[in-house]
């Protein structure tokens, strides 16, 4: 861990705190209202706002989780810092790829 990773870790955490609360509120709303897939998608398809919101969320969580995983690998496995960092980058890219795909799935018209 160094100062650069630390800044990214804490900054993405701070960004996500309000984002995740909004996300949970949205999910609560959707489940309470009993929204079907069609209902959900009719609201998200073609929406720049949802794309921006979830796009930012996916970017932040990919960075945050990757750095967290890097620390755990370095501290709890015999991997060196460099190897842990490499695995973490792969994991972060995986999250970013899957996340972007998911966002695209619900916002692309």
């Amino acid at each position: 861990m160094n100062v650069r990773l630390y800044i990214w870790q804490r900054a993405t955490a701070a960004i996500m705190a309000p984002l995740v609360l909004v996300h949970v509120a949205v999910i609560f709303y959707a489940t309470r209202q009993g929204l079907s897939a069609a209902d959900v998608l009719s609201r998200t398809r073609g929406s720049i706002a949802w794309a921006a919101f979830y796009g930012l969320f996916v970017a932040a969580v990919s960075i945050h989780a990757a750095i967290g995983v890097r620390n755990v690998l370095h501290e709890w496995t015999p991997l060196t810092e460099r190897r842990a960092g490499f695995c973490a980058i792969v994991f972060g890219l995986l999250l970013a790829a899957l996340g972007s795909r998911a966002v695209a799935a619900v916002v692309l018209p």
Partner: protein
Amino acid sequence: MHSELSVSLWLGGEDGRYESYSVPQRESQTVLDVVTFVQRNIDPTLSYRFACRVGVCGSCAMTVNGKPRWTCRTHVAKVAHGGRLEIGPLENLPVIKDLTTDMRVFFEKWQEAKGVFAPTKTRRDAIAQIRPDTPARIAADASIECINCGICYAACDTVRWNGDYFGPAALTRAWTLVSDERDGGNGARLQAVAGSGGCHACHSHQSCQELCPQSLNPTAAIAGLKRRTVAAYLKGEITA
């Protein structure tokens, strides 16, 4: 109060074992008294460290029932539940023999964290006028009474998990110097604590603060270093 204590002491090196002894319990007995009793009356080959035996030198730190403590300041009555004591060497340090550890790496990390005063004046200059009530001096004074006993180092999860980590004591000393307006070494010092093994590895578990016998708060000191290094990095004064 039990009349006899059931005491387990670590004997040997890293691959040693716990050996059991029966020690008479006395009033106001400390754990150091117990160890000394064993060495004087039962096993003269037992190796352990102490010096002042009154809680000002920090030499007698050992692991007592799972926690690192000053044995001279730990009353048996307070920790020996059911009349049992388990005493071992400090954790996170190589064991030399029995209850003694090799503290060289602890002090080497002190140096690596640049816990050394870098003077900016000579004896020909006027004496620096340091007000005791500035925030920086208050911060430095709050962390300055460290006597290098190693308890925080032994208690720290991050030290245990990350061999590069400087540890709470070395970083706390670095913080006192970062807060010292007379010191001129902050460029190199902030760079040293901003890299691998530096202050950012700290997870703020606070075991150090909980167990420090001098009531220091390394978590807070390290948090101070985190803020200073972030500011320095964003201003381009240090690199990652």
